[in-house]
Each structure stands twice: as structure tokens, then as C-alpha cells.
């Protein structure tokens, strides 16, 4: 059995070596695929904080992914049309600056997570899943009817946004930027997990009544986890939109929320690199099988089924021989 720490480093190394190879072999599409995997991994790393540590099965994380996407789409749209966004007396200039877009995505999705969390954390189990799903659908249908930003057709952004000091039009540079953000998010997860907050959150998942009897409020712990989680997934949405130079209501779809959960389960729930491994496998299968058959998702389903039935702890669980981070 392999120690989890080694697996983590090997996976990260893979994410450095493969795109560099692609760069020298002149395979830009591979770099784009790797970027896609990194961004999906970031979305799932965000969800993993709520799901893996806090036990919150959110089927509405596409809300944050979509909000991040539209934060990018709307700001860049106003910049490329040279028409500021007018909200009554408030006039907001569009921007092509990634840092400003990222902050907007983080703040918007954190606020949305706060409101959604406050309303849905009163419930648990299947009711929590249903309420978060309902919020997702609300945003989905709203975005479809929002004709100012393309409605069902979505919004195209002609040129990728800027990051100071980088040429983001070069796939490898944009990839590196996304990888750096992912590493930052992984750092946040790992720090959080071992902090007093992480300890309490992790206990709130397993034994909420115990957490209460030591004088802590499990709901507030889960709410903060949900907000941090939503913010990170929101940031990934902004990057995803920038990768495709396109946003559309599908970013809000419940299928996306479901896929994020599936990625985490395949990689390993609550494990630091679980979402990263899951996302890499997802994108690889999508690319390799997607060309052969339209039904490649069936094969993903089979893998998911096998893992749920026979390998608690996902791929990391199989490799380490440990079903959970501790056991």
C-alpha cells in the first residue's frame, strides 16, 4: 500500500509533467484538456470542504460554478461592448482583469452560499440534497430567461481575460495560472482540515450532538464550511468560463452538481487529492471514450458503481488501503 502523501505528490507532479511534455511535443489540445481537469478539480476541491469534511451533500454547487462563470461573462461582456453595467444610479465598468473578476466571483458565490446555507442547513439528509437542488434549478431557469446576457444561448467572450505579468492567450501560461490557484485551494483544504475549525467540523459530521455538548454550534460550523466551499467553486467557475471564453446556463445545471459529487466519490471523499484524481479521470475518460461512443458517461457510471460497491474511499482508498483519511 502506498502512503497518501506520496500519491498526492505524484498526482501533482503528473499535472506539471504532462502539460510540459505537451508543450514540447506541440500538442496544445492536451494542455487545454489538462486545464479543464485542473479547473474541474478546483470546483470539486471546493465542494469537498462541504461534502468531505462537513458531510454536506450539496446537489446545488453548480449555483456557485455558474455565478463565477457569469461574474466573468458579465464583466467581460461590458468591457468588450464598452457599455458600462447600469444598476439604477450605480454604474459599473466592465473589466478584462482576472483578479477583479476573481474577487467578484468569490464574493458573489460566498454571499449566495451564505443565503442558501442559512435556508438549507436547517434540514439534513435527503431534504438538504433536495433544497440545494432546488436552488440550483432556480438559478438555472433564471439564467435561461435572462436575455440581457444571452439567455439560453449564453454569452461569448472574444478574448481571454488578462492577468498581470502573464500572456493568458498562451495555453501553457493560462494552465500554470489555473494550477497555481488549484494548489492554493489544496493548501486551504489541508490547513483547514487540521485546524480547530476543521476538527470541529469533522466532528459535526460524525456526531453533531457531541459538538453541541462541548458548547459549539454544529450548524454555524457547517455554514462557514458551506460559504468557503461555495466561494472556491465560484472561483473555478470564473476560470472555466475563461477557458472556454463562453458562459451559458449549463454551468448552473444539476448535472454539473452531480458530476462534481461523482468526481469526489471516485477520487475519495474527504481526501485532499480525491477531487483532483477524480477530475483527471473524468476528463481523460471524456476525451478517450467520448470520441468512440456518445455513451461514455455510462462507463463513468460503471466505474462509480464499482467504487461505491467495492472500494469505500475511492481510488485513494484502493491505493492506500484506507477507507477514510484516518481509518
Amino acid at each position, binding site marked *: 500500500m502506498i502512503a497518501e502523501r506520496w500519491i498526492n505528490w505524484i498526482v501533482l507532479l503528473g499535472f506539471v509533467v504532462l502539460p510540459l511534455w505537451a508543450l514540447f511535443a506541440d500538442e496544445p489540445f492536451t494542455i487545454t484538456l489538462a486545464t479543464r481537469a485542473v479547473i474541474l478539480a478546483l470546483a470539486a476541491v471546493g465542494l469537498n470542504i462541504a461534502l468531505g469534511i462537513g458531510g454536506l451533500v450539496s446537489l446545488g454547487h453548480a449555483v456557485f460554478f455558474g455565478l463565477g462563470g457569469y461574474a466573468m461573462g458579465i464583466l467581460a461582456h461590458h468591457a468588450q461592448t464598452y457599455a458600462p453595467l447600469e444598476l439604477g444610479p450605480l454604474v459599473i465598468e466592465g473589466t478584462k482583469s482576472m483578479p477583479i473578476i476573481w474577487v467578484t466571483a468569490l464574493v458573489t458565490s460566498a454571499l449566495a452560499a451564505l443565503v442558501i446555507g442559512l435556508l438549507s442547513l436547517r434540514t439534513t439528509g435527503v431534504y438538504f440534497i433536495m433544497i440545494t437542488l432546488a436552488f440550483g434549478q432556480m438559478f438555472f431557469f433564471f439564467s435561461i430567461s435572462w436575455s440581457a446576457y444571452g439567455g439560453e444561448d449564453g454569452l461569448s467572450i472574444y478574448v481571454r481575460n488578462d492577468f498581470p505579468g502573464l500572456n493568458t492567450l498562451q495555453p501553457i501560461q493560462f494552465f500554470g495560472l489555473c494550477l497555481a490557484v488549484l494548489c492554493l485551494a489544496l493548501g486551504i483544504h489541508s490547513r483547514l482540515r487540521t485546524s480547530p475549525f476543521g476538527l470541529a467540523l469533522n466532528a459535526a459530521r*460524525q*456526531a453533531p450532538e457531541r*459538538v453541541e*455538548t*462541548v458548547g459549539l454550534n454544529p450548524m454555524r460550523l457547517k455554514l462557514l464550511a458551506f460559504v468557503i466551499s461555495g466561494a472556491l467553486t465560484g472561483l473555478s467557475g470564473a476560470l472555466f468560463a475563461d477557458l472556454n471564453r463562453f458562459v451559458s446556463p449549463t454551468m448552473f445545471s444539476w448535472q454539473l452538481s452531480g458530476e462534481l459529487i461523482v468526481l469526489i466519490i471516485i477520487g475519495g471523499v474527504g481526501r485532499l487529492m480525491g477531487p483532483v484524481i477524480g477530475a483527471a479521470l473524468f476528463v481523460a475518460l471524456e476525451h478517450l471514450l467520448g470520441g468512440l461512443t456518445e455513451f461514455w458517461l455510462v462507463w463513468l457510471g460503471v466505474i462509480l458503481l464499482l467504487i461505491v460497491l467495492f472500494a469505500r474511499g475511492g481510488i485513494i482508498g484502493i491505493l492506500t488501503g484506507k477507507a477514510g483519511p484516518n481509518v
Partner: protein
Amino acid sequence: MSEPVLATRNLKKAFGALQATDDVSIDLRAGEIHAIIGPNGAGKSTLIAQICGGYRPDAGTVHLAGVDVTSLSTAERAQRGLGRTFQISALAMEDTVLENALLGAVGHARKPWRLWGAVERDRSLRDRAMEALARVGIADLADQITANLSHGQRRQLEVAVALTLAPKAFIMDEPMAGLGAEGSKVMTTFLDGLRSEAPILLVEHDMDAVFALADRISVLVYGRVIATGSVEEIRNSREVREAYLGEEA
């Protein structure tokens, strides 16, 4: 006698037609162990849940250190000094023994909003947790996964977590269950010394332990307190023997 540390007045709780506690008024005074005994289903755990905030009583009040806490949440009552152990262990089973004790230390220090810095490297939290484990005799199990502990060891861990809170009053629901004869003796000696730190409301089926420890005993039958008194008084009460002790003989 000064004001009791913990006092319930006329607590009532019904589950449908079943009156689980009926007009229960008991006091817990500084320095004492007050045992609650009664047959299975008498309402002992329900009483504890009302004291600690798990169930809202249908009627009656709970006072802690003179303050009415009846409308407070479980967490707020814990912050004000209730240290509880559960009859059915409520522990983070996937976590280590030390992590469970650390949770108590984090609660006591009110540090749950620290998002940075490893909890195990926080000296003061770690010392408090390890000290509590050492006091109940399971310091050597600190790195074990809680799910791998025996029933008795989980009981000890429950008590250790309560210790990390340095509460004003301990509320213990069957801390001896599953400990075995030897473990029971050790725990009895431990609780005997603990009462000088904070009084203990002790629900327990192990009569040897109860008679050895209790300053006062209340007998609960069908949700009602049928007698409160010293060990001698309870042992010699005909009513109690008929209603409860008689069953065991």
C-alpha cells in the same frame, strides 16, 4: 445549604400518551454526587436530555448556578457549565481518541473559528486534552481510532471529554456500563474524587457503585420521583423496595 448548582422544577415531558418525566424536581448541590436510579424506561435519560437541552420540556424549569437556562440551546448550556456524558456513546468514531478530547478542549477554549494552525500543535489545547485522557486512564490510547475502542473505553473517553470542559456540574448517564468489575471499581474511585471539583448527577444501574458513591439518591419510576434521600434511607424505604429494588431481588 447554599443555592444548588443545578435545579429542576416540575419538569414534564410526554411522548404521545407516554409521560416520560412527570413533575421532576431535583437539586444538585456543590460537592455532592446525586444518583438517579430507576428501572429501564423510567425516564432517566429523558430527564438528562431536558437538563442538557436535547429535549424542550413540556413544562417546568432548569436552573444552572441560579440562572434559568430552560430556553437555552444545548451548546449555550454547555458553555455555562454543563458537562455531559451519553448513555449511548456520541463520539467522532472515525477520529482518534486524542481528537475527540481535543474537540472538548476547542469547545472549552471557544476556538472553533480558528481556520489556520494545526490543532494538535496548539500546546494549551493538547495539554488539556492529554491531561483529561490521563485522568481517566486512557492516555496510552490517544492515537487509536475511536471506533476500535471497547465499550468500556468509550465510556472513559466520554468522561474525559466532559473533563476537558471543566464544567460546573457533571451529568453522567451510565458511565459504568460495559466497564466490567475491575473498570467499574477504578471509575468509582475516580468519580469519588471528582465530586470536589464539580458535583455529579449520576444515572447508574450498577448499584454497588451507586451505594458506594451517592450522597443522595432519587428514585425515578414511571417518570416520577418516588423518593429522595441518603443511601440508608433509600435502602430502607419500603416503597422503593417494592417499586424498584424489589424487582432486582
